[in-house]
């Protein structure tokens, strides 16, 4: 009886798999907070609305930055908006986040970040002292990453129409190496590496909002990843893909790898570095650190036989001291991410529909 039941269950799973591959459609009449959370709803919105409107070969891979040939130069172009609340938090503020986030999107595309734009949307009444604090921090972050802010824009909206200060940055970088990076290149047997402890940024923001009455000594991990990414590419030029694990966390990146490559992913909970403070806060709040945002961590896919070299190269860099192999690409269960739990069982790690923590970056 049981094997007949297993067979029926497998048929249902196949049917679900087919349903998941259908082209996405936005069913809601209005945009909800879920559409901005980085999970399934965001993915649906991007694929149905934005990709539907702007479809072209540069956009279609939906990588962190577009890879473009301009004249004889191969450049990477990206943009990102920052609406984090609160604006200032332990370890950083909206200013360095706006620089590092865009630098990181270029870095994981294999580019050397060069120039940034900065657009400010300010709310009437926003203290000039706070604005100066933000721009000082942007200046310092740009200097640390070796980029310049070369153009910008300012808009002011009436009180109540924005929350203090929103920033948009676009970034341009030069792809000098002969790299071919993309989640679609992941192959069974490849190793998946994370460059350090996950979830620091998301937990910091959550606690900084002061709504939860939990105190912990956590700081955002916001940092520029261009040096770290370059070290990895120097050591392992055949790196298949890099992503920075922001909204939706490492779990979302693993799902993107599985879906883009059509392979499976098997990760091991015991191997994923998480700081005890972050793990403790997540346990209390019932949140899985796998879904919590980082702002200074990259996830890399490298051929299995290069894994040791990749980890050593990352660990040699100050931002990658706790780099670790967290899983592998598999040829079974295509498109699905599985996690071997510390308890010893196995479960699926799916994309979240929405995020319990809006406005994390």
């Amino acid at each position, binding site marked *: 009886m*049981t094997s007949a039941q297993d067979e*029926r*269950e*497998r048929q*249902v*799973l196949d*049917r*679900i798999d087919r*349903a998941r591959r259908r082209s996405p459609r936005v*069913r*809601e*009449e*209005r*945009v*909800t*907070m*879920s559409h901005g959370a980085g999970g*399934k*709803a965001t993915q*649906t919105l991007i694929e149905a609305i934005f990709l539907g409107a702007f479809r072209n070969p540069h956009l279609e891979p939906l990588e962190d930055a577009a890879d473009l040939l301009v004249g004889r130069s191969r450049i990477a172009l990206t943009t990102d908006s920052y609406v984090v609340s609160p604006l200032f938090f332990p370890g950083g503020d909206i200013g360095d986040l706006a620089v590092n986030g865009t630098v990181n999107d270029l870095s994981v595309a294999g580019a050397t970040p060069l120039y940034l734009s900065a657009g400010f949307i300010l709310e009437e009444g926003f203290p000039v002292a706070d604005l100066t604090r933000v721009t000082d921090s942007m200046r310092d972050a740009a200097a640390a990453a070796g980029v310049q802010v070369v153009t910008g824009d300012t808009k002011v909206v009436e009180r109540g129409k924005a929350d203090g200060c929103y920033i948009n940055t676009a970034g341009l970088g030069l792809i000098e190496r002969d790299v071919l990076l993309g989640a679609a290149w992941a192959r069974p047997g490849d190793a998946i590496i994370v460059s350090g402890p996950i979830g620091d940024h998301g937990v910091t923001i959550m606690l900084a909002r002061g*709504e*939860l009455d939990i105190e912990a000594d956590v700081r955002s991990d916001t940092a520029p990843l261009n040096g770290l990414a370059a070290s990895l590419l120097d050591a392992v030029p055949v790196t298949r893909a890099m992503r920075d694990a922001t909204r939706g966390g490492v779990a979302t990146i693993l799902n993107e790898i599985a879906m883009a490559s059509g392979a499976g992913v098997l990760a091991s909970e015991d191997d994923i570095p998480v700081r*005890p403070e972050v*793990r*403790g806060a997540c*346990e209390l709040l*019932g949140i899985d650190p796998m879904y919590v945002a980082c702002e200074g961590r990259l996830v890399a896919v490298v051929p299995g036989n290069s894994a040791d070299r990749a980890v050593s190269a990352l660990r040699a860099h100050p931002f990658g001291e706790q780099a670790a192999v967290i899983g592998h690409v598999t040829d*079974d*269960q295509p498109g*699905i991410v*599985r996690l*071997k*739990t*510390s*308890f*010893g*069982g*196995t*479960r*699926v790690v*799916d994309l979240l*529909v*929405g995020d*319990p923590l809006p406005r994390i970056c």
Partner: protein
Amino acid sequence: MRFVDEFRDSDKAHALAAKIAALCEPGREYKLMEVCGGHTHTIYKHGLEDYLPESVTLVHGPGCPVCVIPMGRVDDAMHLASRPGVIMTSFGDMMRVPGSNGSFFDAKAHGTDIRMVYSPLDSLKIARQNPDRQVVFMAIGFETTAPSTAMTMLRAAAEGLRNFSVFCNHVTIIPAIKAILDSPDLRLDGFIGPGHVSTVIGCRPYEFIARDYGKPVVVAGFEPLDILQSIYMLVLQLSQGRSEVENQYSRVVPPGGNLVALETIGETMELRPYFEWRGLGFISHSALKVRDEYAAMDAESLFEVPGVRVADPKACQCGEVLKGVLKPWECKVFGTACSPETPIGTCMVSPEGACAAYYNYGRMGRHRVVDVTIAETAAQAGTS
């Protein structure tokens, strides 16, 4: 991490799994219901079923607060939220539950003032900050959350707050278990009793299950080893022909429950004559309402509530899933028309819902650890 890692030790899990497998009689099926949605979540999140022999099946019960809210109550809540001057506050779990005209999230996107809170006390804070608005707290949950609603009402009364009220949807677990036991299409061998509910009501209310229905009950904690141990205790009782109420979660659950919490509930709330449960229908004396003495804090007396019964969508088989008659994946719309992005039934909404737990965590081909363990043991025996 202390208080966590020791309850997730895989060596201990392997040892318990071997003991469970050794107790199971060949050819006998063991159907055990975990009543509480928190247990369902733990089981899937840690991949606990990998440790069970094929003859042990876990049936997911009705103890998920969001899952049992009928559509009509969601519509009533939506109606309350849309009254002029009202701020509706709700736990996050409730935000995506579909009513007949969308969810709280959809209403929020249309401009209705619905705010997510972590505790009913947050609603009080909002009430103090908005003295000219009526703040209605969408109270849901079993005996686990009812005391915090009750405490909040008492505090509001003590402060003389006049703009705070409760839309009370608290339910009680015992009548639901009884309804399941009396349901003709169900065969269960034992119950993993709800841990958090039992911290409030204690273990005695389950005694009728063991005595009158001859089914063992083990009240269990929420870490994976807690659940695995309680399964062992149930299978042990079954193998010895016993049916008793046992307390695996004695580090938290006192046999007599929490009298202060019970008194607080009793002071502010009383049993309703009947209440509709999603999928289970009307069950008498299965829910709480605000006492008349606190009518000023009862959203159902302050406002007109339509109270229209709305039939569940035809395709939805939440009722069968809640009773454990169907496995989540056996539902006709599971994973296709009904998924976490577009839930039709409540079981697909809450992380504690059986369907959402299975969809998010269990949707894959499985390898049972226990088979591997037995194979290893057999192999070792063969080589020695």
